[in-house]
């Protein structure tokens, strides 16, 4: 029983980290970033190369991942989204161009990194056993680093000038512009941070679950579920959504091993959204 709860917390922490970047980009730009999962995968591969293949320290791997993904984020915003947002009649366009971007990143990753699953050795090995529960140190480290990253991100958004500007942008684009926020630059920054968060999630988790080029779609779908539970565009919502999904999985696989877990999760989600369309913490109609 302890193990079930601990599993839920493990998964929840990982999921919260995965959902964070997605919800940030949505809050800032109103873009549902379909390429989120592919960015996660790319992040995982960069960390794999720097840490696993080149043998540099794990932290260097994460830094390289952050830098790469920030660039990818800037590229996506500057080359693709900015233009589509301005020209398109319908706002859905951004979502579709993101779906195109997802396919692009996925094929690129497959060509560059190959079809194999990749992984790196645990950063630290060993298992800590408390009562009946097993807690590998490698996982505890990842959980701690995820918590640090999420905490750091919240502090950044709350207390820095850039963070405040980004929040203003998320609340009301026009108003932020009138207040003197350079909307274009901050959109780019927001996109870069969102992509970096996705990549760092991949980089951190590559040490416990590895990565392969086809993982992206599943990561995106899970991130969507969390965002739906917590509410789109709300950072605490994404975190809570992540923990709820982690717990649901953990309990679900224990009591319903026969493959119905996700069926139940989806049906419950539909029922839940019928009662509360904006999720737990979202503003009505995003």
């Amino acid at each position, binding site marked *: 029983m302890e193990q079930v709860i601990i599993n839920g917390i493990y998964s929840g922490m990982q999921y919260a980290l995965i959902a964070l970047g997605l919800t940030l980009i949505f809050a800032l730009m109103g873009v549902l970033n379909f390429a989120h999962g592919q960015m996660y995968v790319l992040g995982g591969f960069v960390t794999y190369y720097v840490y696993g293949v080149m043998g540099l320290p794990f932290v260097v791997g994460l830094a390289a991942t952050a830098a790469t993904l920030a660039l990818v984020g800037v590229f996506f915003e500057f080359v693709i989204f900015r233009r589509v947002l301005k020209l398109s*009649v319908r706002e*859905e366009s951004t979502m579709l161009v993101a779906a195109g971007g997802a396919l692009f990143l996925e094929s690129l990753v497959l060509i560059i990194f190959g079809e194999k699953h990749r992984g790196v050795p645990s950063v630290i090995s060993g298992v800590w056993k408390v009562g009946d529960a097993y807690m590998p140190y490698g996982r505890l480290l990842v959980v701690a680093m995820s918590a640090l990253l999420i905490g750091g991100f919240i502090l950044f958004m709350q207390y820095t000038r850039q963070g405040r500007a980004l929040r203003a942008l998320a609340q009301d684009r026009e108003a932020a512009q009138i207040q003197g926020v350079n909307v274009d630059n901050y959109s780019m920054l927001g996109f870069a941070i969102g992509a970096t968060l996705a990549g760092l999630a991949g980089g951190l988790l590559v040490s416990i679950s590895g990565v392969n080029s086809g993982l992206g779609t599943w990561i995106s779908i899970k991130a969507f579920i969390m965002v*739906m539970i917590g509410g789109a565009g709300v950072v605490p919502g994404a975190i809570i959504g992540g923990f709820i999904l982690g717990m649901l999985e953990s309990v679900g696989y224990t009591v319903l091993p026969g493959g119905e877990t996700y069926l139940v999760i989806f049906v419950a989600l539909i029922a839940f959204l*019928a009662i509360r369309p904006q999720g737990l913490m979202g503003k009505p109609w995003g």
Partner: protein
Amino acid sequence: MPNQRSLIAVGVALVIYLIVLPALLADKPYFLGVLTTASVLSVIAAGVWLTFFIGRINIGQGAFALVGGYAAAILMTKLGFSFWIAMPLAGLTAALVSIVIGIPILRLRGVYFAMISLSLTETARLSAQSFRSVTEGAKGIVNIPLPGAVEIFGFTLIPDFSTVDKHLAFYFLAAILLIATFAAMYRLVNSRIGWLFKSLQQNEELASSVGVDIARLRVIAYAISSFLGGIGGAFFVAAQQSVYPASFQIQDSIYFMLYTFLGGLGYVFGPIVGTFVLFLSFEFLHGLNEYQPLIYSIIMIALMLWLPNGLLSIRLPGWGLGTKANPERARGA
């Protein structure tokens, strides 16, 4: 009223589609097959287009294609129905399921509807796997017979597909489905109910305030959309003579949305153009091997960058082919 030139254009297109292409490609089953597939994919995408038309981003059409496919397969193999009855019933089954699901989820808008619709395809796949007594679960339903003959008073209306060139037979079936679907869509969009649908896309509150029953309208539109998905699913199941839980996947749902979108959401015939251009270009890029999806995605992104309002937004002066159904800038309410 459509003008004369566009009537001529439609006439020419129909002659090419129904007479010239099949005559040219009669001994080229591959090309015939690709056009057949693209035609039925357009029919399924037309449903997606209709949900876009009422202002909902639908990424769940694969679910209804799967429901339709299974309904047709079960009706044919377990209950001995003819394909010609099973196909419309498959459409109706999908429509019924969509009404049950649609009543709660159509209240959602924007990305919320998009995300929940995205999980429908997985829900359908998991259901197909879980309810084994009806669907055979993971084993799928195989050895489904080809569509049989339809005879009235000894006169063969439709021949048994196993006795004729089945590639041509499926081509014509697909062509008739496409023409019927888009003729109906054209009528629908330009009818009173079409105007009501459009009012939903523009402003649901306003529509509601002038006495439109928006909840019912949305469900009707979604049911029609899913009906088309079910018909398409039944077609593919008959052509492949088998159905599995993975016959329609999330990728399919995403592609239906992309086809619709790239054709142009403002045009009734957008799904045809989008589907044919994208599906054909994917097929013909196959020689690029591992670069195929990469180049394909670049084409897709490039199209969206240069033609963000769809392929049909390239308008040749005077040719009113695409019925422009949404000229205004419609930001979801």
